[in-house]
């Protein structure tokens, strides 16, 4: 065994450096598979958006930009706290690391809570695809006007031309994409819990912090997915 070895090097690795590099490469490759996984949904989104641009405009307008924007801020903040957690773990400040992990987890729950509020609103407004789906673009347009929003010529045409079935397609993709993202957030929260327990137990140190580091990569990735989802679903249709 090499001189670098310590108690945390698994039996099949030569040394801590090899173990750390393997863990990192493994997580990066996992993230590649995640990119391909979401990529399938992004492909479907892109194709349908180019086929039915009007429906995408209407779909976007029915989403709450305030809630979505708030959630984006929450996730960006959580990326910061996650980075702080990793940094603290690396510099042997395990107590601080545990606190940052708790904060990250809490921000994750805030995000999920807001998502629940959004989903509940969609259920109330019959915007969940399926037999109960109902949307009347003209009524929605009237609501926009009643709210004092300046409705341009282009927007009016979009609302007039949008097919409710295609708006349903938008919502199928909305739920599939944000739902998949939420599943990743829930898994992320689970990982935070596991990190917290181990950190409290004193498993990690400046000698061994691979799990905190690669979990951080995962958490940042999930944030980045949202950074793509938010403009694609909430913003592009509003231009």
């Amino acid at each position, binding site marked *: 065994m090499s001189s670098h070895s310590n108690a945390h090097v698994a039996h099949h690795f030569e040394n801590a450096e090899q173990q750390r590099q393997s863990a990192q490469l493994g997580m990066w490759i996992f993230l590649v598979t995640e990119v391909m996984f979401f990529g399938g949904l992004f492909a479907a989104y892109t194709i349908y958006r180019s086929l039915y641009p009007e429906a995408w405009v209407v779909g976007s307008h029915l989403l709450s930009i305030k809630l979505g924007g708030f959630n984006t801020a929450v996730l960006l903040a959580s990326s910061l706290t996650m980075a702080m957690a990793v940094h603290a773990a690396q510099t042997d400040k395990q107590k601080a690391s545990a606190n940052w992990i708790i904060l990250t987890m809490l921000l994750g729950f805030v995000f999920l809570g807001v998502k629940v509020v959004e989903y509940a609103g969609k259920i109330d407004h019959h915007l969940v695809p399926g037999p109960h789906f109902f949307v009347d673009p003209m009524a929605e347009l009237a609501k926009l006007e009643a709210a004092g929003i300046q409705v341009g010529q282009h927007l009016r045409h979009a609302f*007039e031309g949008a097919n409710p079935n295609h708006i349903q397609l938008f919502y199928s993709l909305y739920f599939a994409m944000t739902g998949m993202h939420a599943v990743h957030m829930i898994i992320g929260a689970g990982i935070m819990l596991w990190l917290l327990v181990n950190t409290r137990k004193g498993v990690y140190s400046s000698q061994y912090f691979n799990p905190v580091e690669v979990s951080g990569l995962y958490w940042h990735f999930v944030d980045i997915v949202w950074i793509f989802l938010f403009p694609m679903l909430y913003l592009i249709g509003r231009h």
Partner: protein
Amino acid sequence: MNSVYSLLPEQASTVAGQVDAIYLFLVAISVFFTLLLAGLVLVFGIKYRRREGAPAPERPHEDSSLELIGGGILLVLVLVLFGWGAKVFFHSTRPPADAMEILVTGKQWMWKLQHPQGKREINTLHIPAGRPIQLTMTSEDVIHSFFIPAFRVKQDVLPGRYTRLWFEATKPGKYRLFCTEYCGTEHSMMGGWVNVLTPADYERWLVDSGGAAVASETPVQAGERLFTQLGCQTCHNPGSGQLGPHLAGVYGHTVKLADGTEVVADDEYLRESILNSQAKIVAGFQPVMPVFKGIVNEDQLLQLIAYIKSLSGGASN
């Protein structure tokens, strides 16, 4: 009919010979390369078989010239194949303008066919030899595929859109028709025959067999009847309310839409405009037309489109 033991099946369309020529070329190169490989491995296997006490073979040199030469030859070969295949493919997917249009609706598990003169049939298609035929096809349920081996043609038939297939039969006879896209329990029963008749026989067949009462309306007439029954003419006829655009001369031409874009009024556009009238509003009109989705079925849609085409002197005679 050629027996199944002969290398090629019956050739009964204008493209069949062209496809078979490529096929024969491919068979020839396949046999050549298979025999070459078999010969080489056998000869090398015997000539260089292991012998007691022989010295260990030398390491091969790292030299890519053989790979490059082989790759070059193959590149030329596949480019020839690609070009030749693409040429015939283009020919076999571009229907001539004067093709006779037959409407096809696939459903689990039958083919419904309608001739321009109105005659309908199921699972058997009668066509005249020596005349290009274009099938305009759609499905009421799942994906099917229309396949006539003797003509070497095939095209998937999809729900919610139109696909086209064309061929020109060269000789009278009876040829098999298959569905080749798996479509459920009775998939293998979804087929029948294509009866190619001489043009004279075809004309006779159109009027006499099957009873005079059946072949009453042509698709265009049926479309015109539907056009009136559904009240389309109240808005779309010249001199009436002017609520909708006139349809004469629309088919195949560019239409300017309310949002400033332009589309070509083809089958898909007409289909969408009937089923979901709000999707693409013609410039200068209000979105007042009702939605006909669920009101007209696939057969009726094809007839309505045939009628609108006829207003432009379209391919439907």
